């Protein structure tokens, strides 16, 4: 189907992960057969394709080149999965929060409004002042 390095056979969900998730869902008296697990994986890959295609169409209709979370949300709505939207909005919020934390670390530099050169000059200036103050204090 594609000429990529990974054949479409490799592009599936990891069986062990799926099995783990299944065991978190099913009641303790039931067991998922191996065939059922593989069938489930097939369905999951179909689901990803369905959502991706729909979200992609929505993004294209908005002449956006990148598929964003909002496009996925609209896709879910159009495909009859509106009940998934609320938990997904929480995921988006958590993601934004973690992004904010990262940006704060580099914020100081950008917030200073000065170029690196100007900042270096300023630093030298302050060192000079501190040095002369020190010498003055020593002289006393």
């Amino acid at each position, binding site marked *: 189907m594609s000429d990529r390095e990974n054949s479409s056979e490799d592009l599936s969900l990891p069986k062990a992960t799926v099995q783990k998730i299944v065991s978190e869902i099913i*009641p303790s008296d039931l067991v998922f057969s191996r065939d*059922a697990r593989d069938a489930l994986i097939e369905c999951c890959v179909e689901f990803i394709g369905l959502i991706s295609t729909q979200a992609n169409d929505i993004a294209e209709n908005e002449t956006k080149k990148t598929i964003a979370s909002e496009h996925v949300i609209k896709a879910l709505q159009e495909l009859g999965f509106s009940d998934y939207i609320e938990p997904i909005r929480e995921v988006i919020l958590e993601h934004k929060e973690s992004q904010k934390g990262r940006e704060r670390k580099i914020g100081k530099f950008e917030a200073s409004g000065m170029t690196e050169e100007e900042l270096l000059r300023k630093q030298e200036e302050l060192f000079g002042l501190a040095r002369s103050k020190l010498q003055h204090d020593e002289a006393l």
Partner: protein
Amino acid sequence: MSNVAEPAPEDRKLSAAAVQVRTRFPVARIKKIMQADDDIGKVAQATPLVVAKALELFMISLVQESCDQARLRNAKRVSPAHLKQAVLNTEQFDFLADTVSKYPDPVAVPGEKEPGPGRGRRRKTAE
């Protein structure tokens, strides 16, 4: 330790919300699966995360419906046939009709007619 209660069918929505899945899908793999389709171009950073969450919810739903089908037939092992019936019974899963057509048909439930699309039984429609 299991977070899953044994719900009656009426409590389906409650139990779906109560299930807490701790294991995460590999987000990078999801992105790869998305982009295996040549039509799909760039995706924003949050997008595979969002799709992963949707997938988790989808899985919970499909697995639970499949378990119901197994129980109806007094089976202890959930098989592809049970998955098939779950798909055929749930409007939300119509897109899987082709995918499941190759799975074997489940046995009939005692007292019911032949298995097959049974829309009347359990509709899961979007609210």
